[in-house]
């Protein structure tokens, strides 16, 4: 076998006290598409960032073409031929495609002027080779995400990239666009480029890769030629942790319908979304990243406008609503990104926790510190928050921050609580605290809608599971029918019957 284009050996990486990578080894060979798979939080992104030169590994060796390297910046990586294409391309929207490709290294004419003709020629050549009908002079403004990725790929090609790493490039693409991307990938592979393809989508992985590596919890749990894998095996490896964590969803009395949505549509994002959530029920919304789950939640909460459809809380119909109105109707939303959307990092826990209930901390029009304290401490105590509530939240750990976000929503006493990835990036202790709280709340009659990519969590917590794929609901599974496999099949867009067959093929998992 030839020398690998990139070879990672025993890479370790921690952020603070969190170990993200624990001894990962990976080799990419020229002329091969290597797929890297794993659940969210498995450590894929960190690995990609190390290869891109954005992070330095704590330990381990990194070889390019057999030579030991240490990237301190992305441009160093690019110079030795390692290019990365991210899910959201970082382009200059006001400049042309050709200029984006050649920024900071434009070819020059004899007089020292920028050689636009040469630039355009070179980009046009690549565009042609990739079979894309774009012109080099076109501005990037107005290009679809897929086309923007093409621009990034061409940028990588002009670096004469020997290694091309694509981090979930298809997450935001339509089927047609994916097809075109794959043609490009195929062409590059045949030219001897080593490709690393990070994806959740099983069918894509099997369609294009020669080699598959599966990661879980910062480790490689399986690696081999694509022909040696079956879909089921990949899924099993990905999720295959034992259900050791405690998911104490107790039985709760399922009551009246709290949330009923009908025919929700937001063009280009999701459509035909209808479901309901009842009192005491935890409904999970499962699916892959980019399937439109978060977007549905945002629309229900009034953050993004709906193109059509109806959101009904109890008897109240919400239309063109704002979060303020949604809150009045009794909805709470624990957003997916707690630092960007959930908390004001510089403010104290107390102020963050009462931000949603400002009306209730007043007395005679003024803020009563006592009431603030009462409300904030009631919920933070209940979740056993560590740390003083008059300290800014940015000194807290991820898990404790998540508890603050939960607390601020529970303080509104919502009828419906939407939680988006409630346990992402939190430690085990906080995780079970969150689960215990959610379960408790359901018991007290709250309706909970939970978005999660953590399948064991979904299965353990939910009474009912709705699965989304590419903006549509593809399955509704009762708790008793749900296995990681059934969910994953629906989430990867396999047809219903096929999902069933495959699930049956996995003995002992299906009832």
């Amino acid at each position, binding site marked *: 076998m030839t020398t690998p284009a990139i070879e990672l050996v025993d890479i370790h990486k921690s952020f603070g006290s969190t170990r993200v990578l624990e001894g990962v080894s990976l080799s990419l060979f020229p002329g091969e598409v290597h797929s890297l798979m794993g659940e969210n939080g498995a450590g894929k992104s960190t690995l990609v960032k190390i290869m891109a030169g954005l992070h330095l590994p704590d330990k381990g060796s990194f070889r390019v073409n057999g030579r030991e390297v240490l990237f301190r910046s992305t441009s160093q990586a690019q110079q030795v031929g390692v290019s990365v294409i991210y899910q959201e391309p970082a382009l200059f929207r006001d400049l042309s495609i050709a200029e984006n490709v050649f920024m900071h290294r434009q070819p020059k004419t004899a007089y020292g002027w920028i050689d636009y003709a040469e630039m355009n020629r070179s980009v046009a050549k690549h565009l042609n080779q990739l079979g894309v009908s774009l012109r080099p002079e076109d501005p990037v403004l107005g290009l679809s995400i897929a086309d923007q990725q093409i621009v990034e790929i061409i940028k990588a090609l002009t670096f004469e990239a020997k290694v091309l790493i694509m981090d979930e490039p298809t997450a935001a693409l339509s089927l*047609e666009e994916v097809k075109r991307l794959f043609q490009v990938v195929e062409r590059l592979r045949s030219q001897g480029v080593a490709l690393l393809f990070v994806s959740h989508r099983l069918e894509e992985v099997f369609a294009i890769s020669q080699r598959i590596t599966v990661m879980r919890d910062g480790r490689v749990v399986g690696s081999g030629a694509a022909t040696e894998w079956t879909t089921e095996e990949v899924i099993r490896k990905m999720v295959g942790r034992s259900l050791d964590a405690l998911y104490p969803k107790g039985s709760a009395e399922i009551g009246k319908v709290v949330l009923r949505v009908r025919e929700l549509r937001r063009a280009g994002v999701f459509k035909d979304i209808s479901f309901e959530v009842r009192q005491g029920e935890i409904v999970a919304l499962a699916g892959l990243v980019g399937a439109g789950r978060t977007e549905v939640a945002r629309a229900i909460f009034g953050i993004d406008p709906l193109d059509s459809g109806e959101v009904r809380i109890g008897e109240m119909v919400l239309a063109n609503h704002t979060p303020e109105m949604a809150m009045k109707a009794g909805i709470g939303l624990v957003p997916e990104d707690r630092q960007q959307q959930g908390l004001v990092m510089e403010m104290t826990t107390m102020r963050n926790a009462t931000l949603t209930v400002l009306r209730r901390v007043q007395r005679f029009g003024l803020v009563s510190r006592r009431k603030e304290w009462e409300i904030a401490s009631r919920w933070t105590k209940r979740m056993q928050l560590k740390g003083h509530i008059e300290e800014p939240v940015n000194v807290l750990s991820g898990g404790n921050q998540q508890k603050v976000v939960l607390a601020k929503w529970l303080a509104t006493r919502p009828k419906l609580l939407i939680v988006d990835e409630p346990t992402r990036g939190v430690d085990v202790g906080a995780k079970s605290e969150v689960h215990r709280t959610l379960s408790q709340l359901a018991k007290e009659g709250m309706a909970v809608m939970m978005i999660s990519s953590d399948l064991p969590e979904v299965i353990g917590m939910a009474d009912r599971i709705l699965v989304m794929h590419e903006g549509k609901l593809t399955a509704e599974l009762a708790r008793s029918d749900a296995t990681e496999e059934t969910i994953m099949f629906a989430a990867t867009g396999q047809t219903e019957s096929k999902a069933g067959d495959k699930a049956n093929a996995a003995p002992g998992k299906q009832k």
Partner: protein
Amino acid sequence: MTDQGKSIVANNNLWVGTLVRSREASLVLLILALTATTNILNPRFLSPQSLKDLMLNVSIIALLVLGQTVIILMRQIDLSISSIVGITAFLSGTLFVNHPGIPNLVVVLIAVGAGLALGAVNAALIAWGKIPALITTLGTLYIFRGADYAWVHGRQVNAVNVPGSFLAVGTSTCLGIPLLTWIVLILLALFSIGLRQYRTGREFYAIGSNPGAAVLAGINVNRRVATGFLISGVIAGLAGALWLARFGTVDATAGEGIELSVITSTVVGGVAITGGVGTVVGAVLGALLLSVFSSTLVFLRVPSFWQQAFQGAMLLLAIAMDAYLAHRHALRSRVKWSHV
């Protein structure tokens, strides 16, 4: 589905293309229309003297607009230019007074050097002191003008003491166009080429368009931003020397308040205040439009007080229009659009 997608993309490209091209075109049209209308109402509007005055009036603003364009392209702003003009204008005059017979070019070079030094103060504070450009240049607007007053203190340089050959720059013409305007036109051509044909020029656009991506592309953003403020300082220094040539008499107040006209011209000329978009030609046309506009007001005997209000309204109109077009474009291309 794909065909449809592609046709939308193609449409957009066409549409954007015409839009970009049409900013300059529509400015030219507006200027022509305004000139024609005014000339019908008052035929003296297009008399040679009046045209000469018009060109002279716009020249110094247009010159400053060149520097400001570079700054705004990078999402920055330079309010201190008027104070730099004030200092360098008086400096040039003093040089003529204290060193009779000093070559004109030396004076201009010294003024430009002084502009560079003052620009360097801004550059250092913004690029390395990490103070937002607005605050820095607001502060230096004060400081430079204060220093100007403290230094000049009621003195005045009179036209008598400035050599005729230097004053000629502000008065005499070549091929019917004042020398001052020629200087601006030459610099306009140089800036146009610089921003279009050199890496540094393109990097100014890149930084304003997407600062994060600029860093990823390996551009030294700090250094480019600093370069921009140095350029702005140099231009302001030159403008100071030419201010003396144009007006002959300068005191400590030279140039006070013109930063607003310069910024308004630049923005009206299509340089987006959010960075990354615009050309120097457009910006200079913006300056010309405003100048023709104030001239029109004079010819139609509208009190000159109306000028300022019109200028403000035009600036608001320009940014509102830019925002509207950008918003419409965002809707058309269906980029995921977050509400916040």
